[in-house]
């Protein structure tokens, strides 16, 4: 799976970073930064929880070919 982000929607709530700091970070303006976009099988639970925890659906998971 791949993580996708729409930085324009991000509100800096930070929930994604809290749950999955290996994929997500915030910059000084409080906007999400993807540290890595690929999610392997073992990481899916964490990254899935992270995207579901975004209050504004600024981050989501997509199939590799999407």
């Amino acid at each position, binding site marked *: 799976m791949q993580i996708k982000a729409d930085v324009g929607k991000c509100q800096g709530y*930070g929930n994604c970073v809290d749950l999955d700091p290996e994929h997500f970070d*915030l910059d*000084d303006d409080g906007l999400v930064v993807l540290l890595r976009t690929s999610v392997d099988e073992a990481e899916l639970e964490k990254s899935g929880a992270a995207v*579901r925890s975004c209050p504004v659906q600024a981050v989501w998971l997509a199939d590799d070919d999407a």
Partner: protein
Amino acid sequence: MTPDRIPGRVVIVGTSVGGIRTGQALRAAGYTGEVVLVGAEDVAPYDKPPLSKQVLVGDQAAGDIPLLGPDGWSGDGLTPMLGRAAVRLDPIGKQVILSDGEPVDYDAVVLATGAHPRNIPAPEGYLVRTVRELRDSEAIRAQFSSGGPVVVVGSGFIGAEVASSARQLGLEATILEALPEPFARVLGSEVAARISRLHADAGVSVLGSAAVARVEPLADGTGVVHLADGRRLPAATVVVGIGVVPATAWLADSGLDLDRGVLTDEYCRASGAPDVYAVGDVARWFDVRSGEHRLVEHWTNAVEQANLVAHNLLHPDELRPHAKAPYFWSDQHGLKIQMVGRIHPDDRVSFLRCATTAGDKDVALYSRDGGFSAAVVLGWPRAVVACRQAWERGEDLAQVTGRLAALSTTAIPVPVG
């Protein structure tokens, strides 16, 4: 996994963020049984934080704040039963009874009925409002479009956001707080003074020691708010934000342990009956860290507990306790206010001004005997992430200060207030 102990059918009561995220987390974890969502409201599940913000000012409408994925109920693999409230839980027969008497069988049930807003004694009609559901917000928005003044009763976060939205629409707005210091109950005096100033600068009149005696409706649909000390304020809309009551009335004869919420253990399992779980604003869970039961009425808590309950339902031999840092955000007059942790009345408050590439940022740190209790961060989300990690690891004040210093070019203490 021990398949024989995995429930075949999970019923979730409540279709807001706690309920929907529990269902989605079950599916994400590969659960293949049936997941039924019982909801009193007959509308597509929507998110609540925008109801006092974007929806009130018209930046977002119902369709912009969905909780389900793009393909709705079926895309998320959830079975909705909407428009009928659950009126009873029978933990022996393992049934949830709906308002028309229909029983819904469960192997496990998740209670996610949230909370109802408190109100003041109000006259008939639409003058006095609370904001909890989409229709409340839509109705207030319609009322705002015919003008102010807006009087907000209570200086909690939702009220403060309503006042901020009213100002954004150019309406006259007043916040009334019965206690002497507005905002202080949650934030303490020092930070409260700062937030009062934010509102005053934005043109909100913030009144302390302002207890409402009654609201008098006038023939033209507007009204007058009478304060206990005799002051009177004209109002086109009165919005009441004086807290919420957990929605447990329907569980009165269930045998569950209820005490201002559904009491659960640290795994969010309700006490008093097997295979019953509770999440979100209705759940008063056992906090191992403090040794007390706690109820946290914030969005992130509901989502964290949803994930936790999905995990615990599917992994009865690897139960996870709820131990995340309490966290919420609030958006007022363009400023993002984010709070982490739990304030104690004896805490000392210090302000730190941190220079970053995005300008100077202020953080209020609450501490007791060198221990870190809580942080209120103004407009600096990056610091919030650091504070949440520090809180969860039990770091002390010096360690948190060190983390904030590492994120800034300089971090200097500034006078409180």
